[in-house]
């Protein structure tokens, strides 16, 4: 009988343990890697006394958990604040009517290009799309400086790109379509395919293949590039097309969820995350570039002032993505 009591006790403890409720709480869903986002959320908790209940996801799993969960919870939202690693997901939620506007005073000096015109999302700390390369393998061929260089014969079979249907690669390709126009962008993708570009499962996979020397170079995000350089000093990175269309800049974004349970705490957390201090922390932990002016960052972190950005409208790029998704599926699978 004692064993049965023990089993019942385990059940009760499990059910009661997670059922904690209260008003001094904020629920945040994030696609920013837990290893970087969790310490910041813990500090907010410590400083304000507001309990943060987080659900983490990762680009490695294509952020399926969080985004599909937010969509499925639309009629009875559980989440108060969505912290995304790029604007695309926030725009999807905005278009599905899941977010609500909030104009944070903390984002006053952030360039309007990084904010939704209706304030459904606000950007901070940015990453950029870069080319990482294996120094040993690039000695002979030289380092490409433009995305168009990757279609040259000397890079045949030596370049990796993540599946363009998912994550920041989708955003990158949609931005290329926006910047170049459909004809040129499709030609670029066809040329890449003809040059035996390797389609990796994720940006992390691209990084891994470059570090191990399986491929010479690959397109990925700055945080992956810095991580790769930490793992192996034979890895380098370059911002592409600095003399042309520029590099894609992708800010983190924050969105308040419509009809959420703790909107005031969500605003407090949003204001906290939009501070320059948070950007400094993200610069240190994962090489993200601050959008506020004058934020102190480690010396090796590039400044947005020194990068030619790709001139795109995030909303229009998101719409472009809808148009090209069938084409991208066809391109990736065949």
């Amino acid at each position, binding site marked *: 009988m004692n064993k049965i009591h023990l*089993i019942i006790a*385990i*059940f009760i*403890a*499990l*059910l009661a*343990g*997670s*059922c*904690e*409720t209260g008003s001094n709480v904020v*629920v*945040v*869903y994030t696609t920013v*890697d*837990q*290893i*970087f986002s969790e310490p910041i959320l813990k500090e907010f908790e410590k400083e304000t006394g507001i*309990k*943060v*209940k*987080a*659900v*983490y*996801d*990762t*680009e*490695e*799993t*294509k952020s*399926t*958990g969080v*985004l*599909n*969960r937010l*969509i*499925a*919870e639309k*009629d*009875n939202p*559980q*989440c108060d604040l969505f912290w995304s690693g790029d604007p695309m997901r926030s725009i*999807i939620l905005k278009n599905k009517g899941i977010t609500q506007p909030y104009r944070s005073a903390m984002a006053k000096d952030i360039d309007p290009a990084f904010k939704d015109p209706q304030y459904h999302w606000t950007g901070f700390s940015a990453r950029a799309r870069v080319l990482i390369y294996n120094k040993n393998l690039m000695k002979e061929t030289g380092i490409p400086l433009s995305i168009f260089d990757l279609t040259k014969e000397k890079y045949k079979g030596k370049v990796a790109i993540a599946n363009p*249907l*998912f994550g920041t690669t*989708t955003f990158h390709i949609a931005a290329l379509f926006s910047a170049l126009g459909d004809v040129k962008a499709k030609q670029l993708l066809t040329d890449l395919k003809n040059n035996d570009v390797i*389609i*990796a*499962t*994720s940006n*992390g996979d691209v990084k891994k293949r470059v570090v*191990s020397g*399986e491929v010479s170079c690959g397109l990925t995000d700055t945080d*992956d590039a810095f*991580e790769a350089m*930490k*793992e192996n000093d034979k890895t380098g990175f370059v911002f592409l097309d600095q003399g042309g269309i520029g590099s894609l800049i992708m800010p983190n974004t924050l969105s308040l969820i419509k009809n959420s349970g703790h909107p005031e705490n969500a605003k407090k957390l949003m204001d906290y995350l939009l501070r320059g201090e948070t950007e400094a922390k993200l610069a240190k932990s*994962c090489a993200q570039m601050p959008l506020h002016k004058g934020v102190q960052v480690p010396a090796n972190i590039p400044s947005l002032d020194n990068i030619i950005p790709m001139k795109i409208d995030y909303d229009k790029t998101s719409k472009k993505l809808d148009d090209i*998704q069938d084409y991208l*599926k066809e391109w990736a699978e065949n």
Partner: protein
Amino acid sequence: MGRKLIRHPLYVLTMTAFVFFVVTPLIYTLAKTFFVEDSFINNVRLLDKELFFLLAKSIILASVIALFSTITGTGLALLLYKTNIRFRSFFKIALLLPLFIPPYILAVAWKDAFFVFFNDTSLISSYFGVILVLTTVFTPLSMLITGSALSNIDSQLEDACLLISDYRSLIFKIILPLIRPAIITSFVLVFLFSISEFSVPAFLGVNVFTTEIFTQFSAFYNHSLAMLQSTLLILICILLLFSEKRYIADAPFLSMGSKGAGNSCYDMKKGKILGLLFLPGWFSLSVLVPFTTLFVQSFADGTTRFIQAFELLVPAFVTSIGLAFAGAVLIVLTGFSAAYYQSHSRQGKVINFLLLIMFAIPSTVYGISLIQFYNHPVFRFIYSSYAILLIGYTGKFSFIAAKLTGNAIKQIPNSFDEAAQIAGISSSMRKRKILIPLIMQSLFAAFVISFIFSLGELGTSIMLYPPGTEMMPVKVFTIMANAPQSLVSAMTMIVLSITLLIITAFYFMMKPFTKKYRYALHKT
């Protein structure tokens, strides 16, 4: 119907709970998606020729994996459970290792190993790679199922065969026909696992039906088409179960119930060298290659990664283990009830189909269904607590427990129960003193397998875990995106060690029960 309700109250209660808590959310979501949102007709048009071609490819792939796993698993089980080959106790445990960690991690290890050995990963990033990785993952499951059946064979039959014939006849005329239900069960289970497996084909860049469903979910956010595609997968599984039923119905079970007659092991003669090569060979392929890769990677930066990995996993230990334990209890209870009800009632077949549907449905679809059904104020106590995860585990894995215990129940001759009935022993007493002792080993196997699967479940958990809580598999996956490979490998090695420790503890906790019920085995 009224009489039956009185006759099997516990089973009716358990099954009613299963139908309400686990099956209703799926029906609710399917109905809402297809009929209320009126998207059924729109999406049927999207089921094109290419999609059915992809489905056919996935069926062939899953069949090949199921065939290889079942043949290898049966061969290993014959060596380990029916011969006195050296080190068999070691191999019985060691060969199970691939079951204890998520297939995705093994795929990562295999890919790294290929790069180290061949400086190229194109060979493993193919159908060959998927077959290799999943066969090594599922062979232990097949070995467990057939091994359990082998240890239940009545030695008198084997002795009688050997009096008039040789070992070859013993294997092909007695042993294999007797364990045919277990072989078919193994094939069916591995097929179902393989066809619904997403992570390995996705990681190796192989396009299969589940990756297509995932793409609809995660790239197009077309939930209704993904749901419709999932129903095709369910139909395939139901067709498979129909054919399985036909074979099992003809299979001879009677001779497998007399556990009390003991289990014979034979001396390897001519096949000794072959056996001695096969066991270490498979051990090297399925365990040494991937696990050595993980082990070496985890120590790439010294022991610091282990300490970091341990610190990261600590907050998730208690919750994950507690949930897996509670989940395994519920799964075994549901599986046992379903299996028992099926063997005593015609309605049991319906339950079996429901268990199969829940097992076969992709994790993401299942997760969405549970969210849409339970995310209402009236069910807040479920949705915002761990209960939602327990419901998720019970739905996903009860089919396996039902299969394992169902086979064991079928192996018990009806005469045992009839004799007790004539002696006037009550129904509950017959279950406690005859049925449960005789299937105790299978119940334990079902519990351990359910525990392992629940502990490593990711697809549904990542969609459902309550905000502010931590789960081991979710943590490993969310950390791995930007963490060095050494940290991910260290986390995997820690999860593996913990799983092994707990299973060892279960084994010792189980020992008194085995001793307690030994009387039943001898008396029968």
